[in-house]
């Protein structure tokens, strides 16, 4: 749709990454890699360090130690705008559209920021393609503040298409979204991934994570406690104990056990 060129060298490499805020050790010696157009889920309980990891990957905060390489280039010391140009794009947990700018202007920003010498009519054409895909063409001249919460999420996704990064981190893309818009986001993820981009999906909606992702990374209090295929991770006792919990039968069984023991 937007850029069908397959990236020859898509590789994110995180090595021994640590982040401390004062005495709080938020990320502990994380090491993992993403090779090629993978669709990876990043899950974990609140406070696990998912957003901190995203902020480090995106350049918004610097790690205490460790390195991050994207496509062979070290990015952990770069400012966010350079990380974006190297090829990493992200959305935010709370939608951050440019509210007093039109939908089209929102889309122009990343395209014009990344490509210094670009034909404006080409940017316009791409922006209209993106809006068509997101079923938001009729809203092109509206201010972003006039959009619903779900539409603003779509707009954020649209901006990433205009940025055209190699790897995309989606932070809670399904939170508070109407089922119909959710379908569009599902389609977006699959399509963008099929076009050769790697996607890291952060979500608490396990159904979405398990149906979309081929690999899961599980964080718990700064530790990477699991890294593998969804089915394996689902039954990993450490993950079950830390985040997923036991299924209903086991839960009710344990509850009954507790009740019996107490009586």
């Amino acid at each position, binding site marked *: 749709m937007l850029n069908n060129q397959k990236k020859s060298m898509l590789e994110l490499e995180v090595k021994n990454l640590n982040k401390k805020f004062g005495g709080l050790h938020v990320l502990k010696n994380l090491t993992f890699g993403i090779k090629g157009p993978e669709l990876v889920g990043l899950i974990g309980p609140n406070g696990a360090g998912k957003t901190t990891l995203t902020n480090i990957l995106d350049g918004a905060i610097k790690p205490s130690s460790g390195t991050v390489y994207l496509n062979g280039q070290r990015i952990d010391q770069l400012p*966010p*705008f350079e990380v974006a140009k190297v090829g990493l794009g992200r959305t935010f947990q709370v939608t*951050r559209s440019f509210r007093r700018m039109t939908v089209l202007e929102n889309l122009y*920003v990343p395209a014009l920021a990344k490509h210094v010498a670009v034909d404006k009519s080409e940017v316009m054409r791409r922006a209209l393609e993106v809006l068509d895909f997101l079923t938001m063409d*009729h809203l092109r001249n*509206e201010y972003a503040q006039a959009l619903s919460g779900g539409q603003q999420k779509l707009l954020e996704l649209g901006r990433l298409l205009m940025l055209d990064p190699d790897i995309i981190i989606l932070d809670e893309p399904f939170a508070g979204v109407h089922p119909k818009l959710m379908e569009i986001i599902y389609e977006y993820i699959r399509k963008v991934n099929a076009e050769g981009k790697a996607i890291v999906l952060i979500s608490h909606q396990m159904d979405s994570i398990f149906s979309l992702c081929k690999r899961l990374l599980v964080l718990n209090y700064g530790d990477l406690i699991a890294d593998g295929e969804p089915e394996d991770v689902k039954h990993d006792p450490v993950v079950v104990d830390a985040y997923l919990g036991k299924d209903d039968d086991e839960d009710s069984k344990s509850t009954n056990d507790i009740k019996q023991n107490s009586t």
Partner: protein
Amino acid sequence: MNRQQTLWLISILIIVFFIAFPFLYGRKDYDYIMHVCITGFFYAILASSWSMLAGYAGQFSFGHMAFMGLGAYGTALFSHYFYLSPVPTNLCTEFEIGDQYFIIKNAVGVTSSTLDQDCLTKALAVWDGSIQITPMPIWIGIILGALLGGIFGLLIGMLVLRLRAAYLALFTLGFSEILRATISAEIKITRGQAGIELPYLFENGISIFGHEFSKTDKIPPYYVMLFLLLACMAVLAWLAKSRFGLFVRALREDEDAAAALGVNTVRFKIMVFVITSTMAALAGAVQAHYIGIITPNNLMILQMSLVVAMAVIGGLENFAAAAIGAIIIQFLLELLRESFVIGGVEVDMTLWRLVFFGAVLMITLRFYRNGLITPIIEFFTRAHVASETVEKRGFQKTEDVE
């Protein structure tokens, strides 16, 4: 003719009106009205450039009048201390440049005929009219003043990179007050509260199309300030339409999100400070040469408040609205000077006009957050958007059904 074209036509008519105005107006108070216009144009440059800084880029700086003052004092000090002389004074610091001597006058502060005089005055007394010294061309002073404003804009822009909202406002307010206090305190160099005199814009008069204008005539400075305003507006319009305008608005909305999308927010923040402070300094330098004197009181917070109020009442997020607002407010403030009597009580409008002005500001902030002029402009530029959205949505639904 569509609404966009109508807006263009109105804009051109307004410009033509102001160009023709000095020849259309013929009442007794001609000089006074011309002065109000010139001052209105001056404030329009300040309000529109501040609108770019605060309205477009979201950098609520209260140091704009300080940059204006830097421009004014830059050119004032330049024209006050530097001269060219065909012979050396042997009293001042001087350098030989070609067949002339570049003279740097010593600073003696406020003087009178009974106090110690500066080196050049002493030399002139010795020469007794036999030697003619040449003051520096004022356009060089104006350019240097504008550059000085730009350099300080760069420094302040770099210093406030990490400051937002109230912290930025307080920092720039502090800078403005420090500058004013320094100028007031450095009496020897700046003559403190007494102010420093400058040559007029056309000190030796000017001849235009065979018509001689004296240095105090209003028409030449009227056109200088009008064309300076139009030039600034053209630059601001170009910036607003370019990537620059798009990116500074993005950083106003959300700096982190803009950076995550590839915008070098640091660079654009500094650029907007440099450009707008240069404009303010340029306006200050020209206005100082028009008035003929600059004092530290011109940098007072009250003056800054006036610029802020003009931009807010006109429309903070539209530089043209801010400029129009400034001119209207300047005229209103002058027209409201007329005191009147109600029921035997005289209302002294020299004081009450400020109350009126404050009330307009409060009403604008409460009911018209985009200012009073911006909605008019948006009527021409954005009125079609709602119907377009509805129409397109209808079309989309029809397609879905098919």
